[in-house]
């Protein structure tokens, strides 16, 4: 991964309909929220609450929240508004006890892992002569996240955890928060909740078969080539 982390889409995928994170998306004239009339009531409530009732941050203190918001922005390439407020959902889960059913023997509880990561990111930023991770330049932030990904953070609070496994914990929480949000579904062209409507056209044996309401892709990039060409691999 290079340090060129700004602008998630230099090729200009501009969403025209609805909202997506940073208004990028491959299906610019489609919005998954337009389908909500086809969702069952229980599911609609869960998804719309996620959208409209963003939880208050109560688990993290102010400084931790500032650090971790900046971290999540880099991790998920959310460099401008509109942003999915991922830290609010992460905080909500941790405030409820956290955990997905397991704990590595060489890691503390997920709740403590997140607090340690917040402290550790600030410690790293201070090594680069910034007051905190949130105050660091984007280049410095990306460098720290890169070292975190590689398990190359040492000293201070990082000595109390298995860094590579702590990385897996925070990435998991961040992706759960981001890809459960309907804005992200619109960005990637995921059909969203599908009960009680279901699907009739699911593509076999004629590939590309789609429901009348499913969008067509306006932009087509092979991510392997594209991420290499853009130097973000």
């Amino acid at each position: 991964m290079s340090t060129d982390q700004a602008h998630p889409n230099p090729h200009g995928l501009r969403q025209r309909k609805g909202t997506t994170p940073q208004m990028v998306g491959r299906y610019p004239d489609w919005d998954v929220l337009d389908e909500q009339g086809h969702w069952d009531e229980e599911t609609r409530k869960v998804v719309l609450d996620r959208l409209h009732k963003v939880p208050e941050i109560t688990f993290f203190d102010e400084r931790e929240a500032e650090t971790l918001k900046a971290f999540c922005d880099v991790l998920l390439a959310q460099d401008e508004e509109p942003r999915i407020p991922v830290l609010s959902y992460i905080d909500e889960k941790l405030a409820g006890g956290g955990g997905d059913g397991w704990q590595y023997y060489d890691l503390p509880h997920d709740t403590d892992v997140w607090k340690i990561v917040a402290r550790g990111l600030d410690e790293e930023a201070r090594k680069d002569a910034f007051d905190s991770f949130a105050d660091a330049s984007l280049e410095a932030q990306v460098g720290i996240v890169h070292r975190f990904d590689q398990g190359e953070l040492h000293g201070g609070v990082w000595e109390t955890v298995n860094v590579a496994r702590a990385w897996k914990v925070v990435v998991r929480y961040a992706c759960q928060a981001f890809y459960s949000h309907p804005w992200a579904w619109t960005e990637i062209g995921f059909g969203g909740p599908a009960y009680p409507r279901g699907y009739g056209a699911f593509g076999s044996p004629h590939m590309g078969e789609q429901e009348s309401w499913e969008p067509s892709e306006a932009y087509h990039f092979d991510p392997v080539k594209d991420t290499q060409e853009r130097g973000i691999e």
Partner: protein
Amino acid sequence: MTPSLFKGSIAMPKDNDSPFLLDKHKRGLQNLDKMARYRDADVVDLVVVGAGAGGGVLAQRLARKGWKVVVLEKGPLWDPDRDWVSDEKGAGQAGLYWTDNRIISGNDPIEMGKNNSGQGVGGSMTHFAGYAPRLHPSDFEVKTRDGVAVDWPISYWDLKDAFERVERELPVAGEDWPWGDPHSYPHSPHPISGAAYVAWEGARQYGIDMRVGPVAITNGVFGNRPHCIYRGFCLEGCKVNAKASPLITHLPDAIEFGCEIRADSMAVKVELDDATGRAAGVTYVKDGEERFQRAEAVAVCGYAIETPRLLLNSACRRHPNGIGNNADLVGRYVMVQGATQVAARFPELLRMYKAPPPEVSSEQFYETDEDRGFARGFSIQTVSPLPIGWAEHVTAEGHWGQSLREYMRDYNHWTVLGILAEFMPEAENRVTLADEQDEYGMPIAHFNYNRCENDKAIVDFAKGVLMEIWDGAGAEDTLTIDRYAHLVGGARMGFTPDDSVVDASLRVWDVENLFIVDGSVMPTEGAANPALVIMALADRCASLLDRKAT
């Protein structure tokens, strides 16, 4: 049996009215108002711990035989209409997965939770993908045939009738099955998605046979259970009632025959009568209060982590190291299956989120082939992660930031094949009690896991096969994630008290009225998903027990 001729005409099970006891327009159980209620002081005929694949079938069979049965279940009694959502994150928030803390360790620590652990009435089957294959005859004699692990004290032929009965009750849909003991299925194969179709084509190019199914999802008329609507949310709990779980396949009938399902009740100890050595009942916690259900017999059906944990926590004077643990075998020989998945990219839009994740599979590599350099083998199955699951695939290869977002935006171009590799039972792959306690005051489980060399060799070979399939299909790129699935073993059945926890009838050695009826009794795991096997074991266990005078 000669198969296709009878498809659709022999589908309805004779001794299980569950599909008729449901309502066409409501998903929850309809006969709860009639459910028997026993008092703790009543000495019921059987108390079952866990309302999953094992406990659900056992309770239904014995209730039909006139036994007074109470099923204690840690989680809730679901009403799919009200409790479940068509949403990946919402399924976890609804509580479908067992997410209470467990400590994991070893060279290959196994992550728990949504992937392998369930709670609530219906057990993990409420969120299993739906694959319901049989074991092969060879699975029961791998020591004799292949010189590895152990033989089972029963053979495939002891379970064959049970497999057929359970397949009719779920019901299982699929093509005529050429592998193992060739057989057919009560429901025809489901139509498959474009995402599965490209995998199938690739396999054909490479000379691999694949078949549609076998999945425990209705594909036709089946009492009041609707047909599948192909919405793709099998792992989030089937709101349709098309995919099988004991909640809808066995427990409605059990209730009709006097079984009580006592939900939100966490068993913490099996109590033995010190004078006789017989099980006297189960101590459990409900609404924060510790209670004791008396019973003539006890069946522990808590699966590979919770069953050993409960037995170990039930130490008493006669069994100072835990009930059934006098040979130090409780909690040992737990197995997972190697479940590496390889995703492949195609230029077309495949939208793998449509149609059920389980669609086509192959058991061509199931048995030992000495040329491959390892014992036993693996099966191949299509899978279809939803967006959060897809992010696990992308981040597993180290992507974050912009490249994560870009691979995620490319979601609709990808399709995924997975393997189930048979791992060997090893004594040190075990569940023990940790120092930490849970909210019920019970020590939590510590699960240690190391793969052996044979395990690693199977996975390496199988990954190569998946790569060849995608190559044959014309994939532009692949992403690989190493992972594990399923849990069995931990209270193995065997031939003598020195080599096992339970005998061939699933009775704990030395405790004549205590049974273990779940996946933990499996001495080896095969390369098959365990749900059908566990149900068949429960069916057989029940068939060996006497009818009660009513």
